[in-house]
């Protein structure tokens, strides 16, 4: 079995107009192995998987599954051939129970009546076999993200998949959950299942995979047994050049207090986690990293500081001044900048071009407006300056922002937010969804800010990022800090436990 090839893809091409999403992909996946596919955003990983799963029809190329040539025209066909896919964004019906979600679309039973009994038994067997703990009667919307993902996996197994594709599965998990997931995947392997694991996190590839295939610009760059590569080699293959992610970080020179927060408690907005008594300080020239699983009060904290959410209790002092309830636009003028979490939701206007997006939030400034009108020459000059300084690749200032890659969009936001020489930068997930080259650049920029005596509040759920950039790390869980310390005094395990709400013994925290 192990020597057989589960999946072979030869010269797969898929073009969309001028865009060559896949331009010659070769892939060989040995049966009963875990195969990692890595590549930067936009390298063509998703398109490849969509072609395999019957969501796209490839222009040319061949797909062999278990030695048989196949061409799926719908996901249903792929499913019936034993391919299962766990998408990056879960496809669940929140109002239904776990069991109902699992059998959805493959309901057993005669006629119009469902037979839950049999399916429950089957599902229970699957869970037992792989040690997957699931409360089948819980309603999905009440279930944490990690469990929802487990549900998705069981769903795939229930349909009898022997080749399981996971698209960026670890993005929403705590370190412990990730370890648990790896164990489960290894169980699958033992059982003869084949796993394809799509990711851009190289440490995960090294920890888990048997083989790895690197994709760049829609082409297969190469594939190797994991023993023949390391993270450095893979990074170089992904980007096409050497990448330096080892950061040169001098000792911090914390100066005056920039932000002091005392017992911050925000208003409850919808179902969002509120900040529930947060206290911390940031000094000039210092990076405070806040880590936590998404949805633990990050938004409330940031919006509370920025004056976008009502503060019910507590004090926020910026350069010694009370800023509770001060207008966002006023704060921006006073040197508070924000790189917001979601580029296209809160950072940019999708329909605007590069120039228009380059001034968002600073568009009322005197340097851009005189006699009530925009001074387009000055704006152009400024925008070009950002483009050069931050190495943004764009066809022109007139180009719609959506024609830029994620990394370039992010660099434009960062350029914009840093241009006014802020005293405080709130950087939320600054490297989310950008390629390695841009990550490297963004890290350098944040460290440069620190050198220039700017206070940086880094909010992220990328553990490596927070640990390598921050001078102090605070772990956020359900709107409170579980602990705060320098990175050297915190192990990944400790942080992982705190992210899951377990307070380590003997840890005082900063509350």
């Amino acid at each position: 079995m192990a020597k057989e090839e589960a999946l072979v893809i030869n010269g797969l091409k898929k073009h969309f107009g001028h865009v060559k999403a896949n331009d010659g992909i070769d892939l060989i996946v040995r049966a009963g192995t875990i195969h990692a596919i890595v590549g930067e955003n936009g390298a063509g990983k998703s398109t490849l998987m969509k072609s395999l799963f019957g969501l796209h029809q490839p222009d040319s190329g061949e797909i062999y599954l278990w030695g048989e040539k196949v061409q799926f025209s719908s996901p249903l066909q792929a499913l019936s051939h034993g391919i299962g896919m766990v998408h990056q964004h879960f496809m669940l019906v929140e109002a239904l129970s776990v069991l109902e979600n699992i059998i959805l679309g493959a309901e057993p039973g005669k006629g119009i009546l469902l037979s839950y009994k049999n399916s429950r038994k089957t599902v229970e067997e699957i869970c037992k076999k792989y040690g997957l703990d699931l409360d089948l009667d819980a309603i999905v919307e009440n279930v944490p993200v990690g469990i929802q993902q487990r549900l998705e996996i069981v769903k795939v197994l229930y349909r009898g998949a022997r080749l399981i594709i996971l698209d960026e599965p670890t993005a929403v998990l705590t370190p412990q959950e990730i370890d648990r997931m790896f164990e489960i995947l290894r169980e699958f392997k033992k059982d003869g299942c084949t796993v394809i694991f799509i990711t851009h996190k190289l440490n995960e590839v090294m920890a888990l995979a048997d083989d790895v295939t690197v994709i760049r610009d829609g082409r297969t760059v190469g594939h190797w047994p994991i023993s023949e590569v390391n993270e450095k080699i893979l990074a170089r293959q992904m980007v096409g050049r050497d990448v330096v992610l080892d950061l040169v970080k001098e000792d911090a020179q914390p100066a005056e207090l920039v932000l002091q927060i005392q017992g911050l408690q925000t208003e409850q907005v919808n179902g969002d986690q509120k900040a529930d008594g947060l206290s911390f300080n940031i000094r000039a020239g210092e990076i405070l990293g806040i880590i936590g699983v998404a949805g633990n009060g990050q938004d409330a904290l940031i919006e509370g500081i920025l004056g976008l959410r009502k503060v019910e209790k507590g004090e926020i002092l910026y350069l010694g001044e009370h800023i509770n309830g001060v207008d966002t636009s006023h704060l921006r003028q006073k040197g508070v900048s924000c790189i917001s979490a979601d580029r296209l939701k809160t950072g940019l206007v999708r329909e605007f071009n590069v120039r228009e997006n380059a001034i968002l939030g600073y568009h009322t400034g005197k340097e851009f407006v005189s006699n009530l009108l925009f001074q387009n020459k000055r704006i152009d000059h400024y925008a070009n300056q950002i483009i050069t300084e931050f190495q943004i690749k764009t066809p022109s200032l007139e180009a719609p922002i959506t024609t830029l890659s994620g990394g370039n969009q992010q660099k434009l936001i960062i350029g914009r937010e840093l241009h006014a020489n802020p005293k405080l930068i709130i950087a939320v997930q600054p490297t989310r969804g950008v390629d390695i080259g841009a990550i490297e650049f963004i890290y350098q920029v944040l460290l440069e800010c620190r050198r220039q005596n700017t206070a940086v509040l880094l909010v992220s759920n990328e553990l490596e990022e927070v640990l390598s950039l921050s001078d102090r790390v605070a772990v956020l869980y359900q709107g409170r800090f579980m602990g705060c310390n320098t990175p050297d005094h915190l192990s990944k395990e400790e942080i992982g436990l705190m992210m899951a709400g377990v307070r380590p013994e003997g840890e005082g925290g900063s509350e």
Partner: protein
Amino acid sequence: MNTSRLKHFFWQILPSVLAVLSALLIGAVIIFAIGENPLQAYAAMFQGAFGDPSSWAETLQRATPYIFGGLAFSIATRSGLFNIGIEGQMYVGAIAGAIVGFSIHNIPAFLHIALALAAAALAGYVWAIIPALLKVKSGVHEVISTIMLNYVAYALTAYLTVRVFHEPGAVAQTYKVDPSAILPALMPPNKLNTGFIIAIVLAIVIYVFLFYTPWGYNLRVTGLNPGAGRYAGIKSTRIVLRAMLMSGAIAGLMGAERSLGIYGRFINSFSPGYGFTAIAVSLLGQNHPLGIIPAAILFGAFENGASFMSLQVNVPRELGLILEALIIVFIAAEHFFRDGLRSMLKGDKS
């Protein structure tokens, strides 16, 4: 830089051009079905709309309320509002202008006109305050509130016309306005009046406002991505409120152009639905102040040209309305035109 601008322009107007061409094509099928030659009919229509200066005048006269109305709609839409209450705001504006027109006497014409227009704009503004506040304070959807206020406006103006300012006679109309309040005609005997010039100037002013000032920028950001606006420090409620009020004021002017420029009084139920057709005009003009002008002229031309055509060939004048309706249908399918065609031609990048 220029090519990218041109490209942008091309993609921007493509859906509108295709909507018009599709409407003309289906119109041609209809003409053919009633046994006439489509080319001949369209030629007659074109001649009727643009054949000589007086037909131009009539086309522009008919286009004028659509320019005003399109601008009113577009400014609300750009801020993320759907103002379907232009008709009602127009009615109260029309009667307010007329009331000032016949109630004040013996003042210079320019002052009288200015006062009457100001009253009309104010009336439309006031009429828009209600849905604007309801929206901002308690989240009432503006489509519901403005539709309801349309009916209130019909009833209110009918009451004022029949009970308060009724000119004796069988027609439900108010007194005539003083000559000093009449918007001067541009090409008599056609009723095309200075209101057209005002509309064009207004379009240019709004264009500059939207695309060259920070306030217009705020308004567009609020309409396109309030989330990004929020983080940029733009107060969306304030912007939305102001946009609705501006929209109402422009709709008020739209009414005054009719009462002061065309009828010389307020006539009950004078509008054949200008305020609603204006929505289609605005959409056809891609909610762009300068796009609305040609779109409005096109609609004016359909209506004007169709009457001339019905005299030349055996095709009823209602064809003009059919073409307008078809354009509305195709514009409503804009998402197909824009996104569907773009991905068909250029490829889906996902």
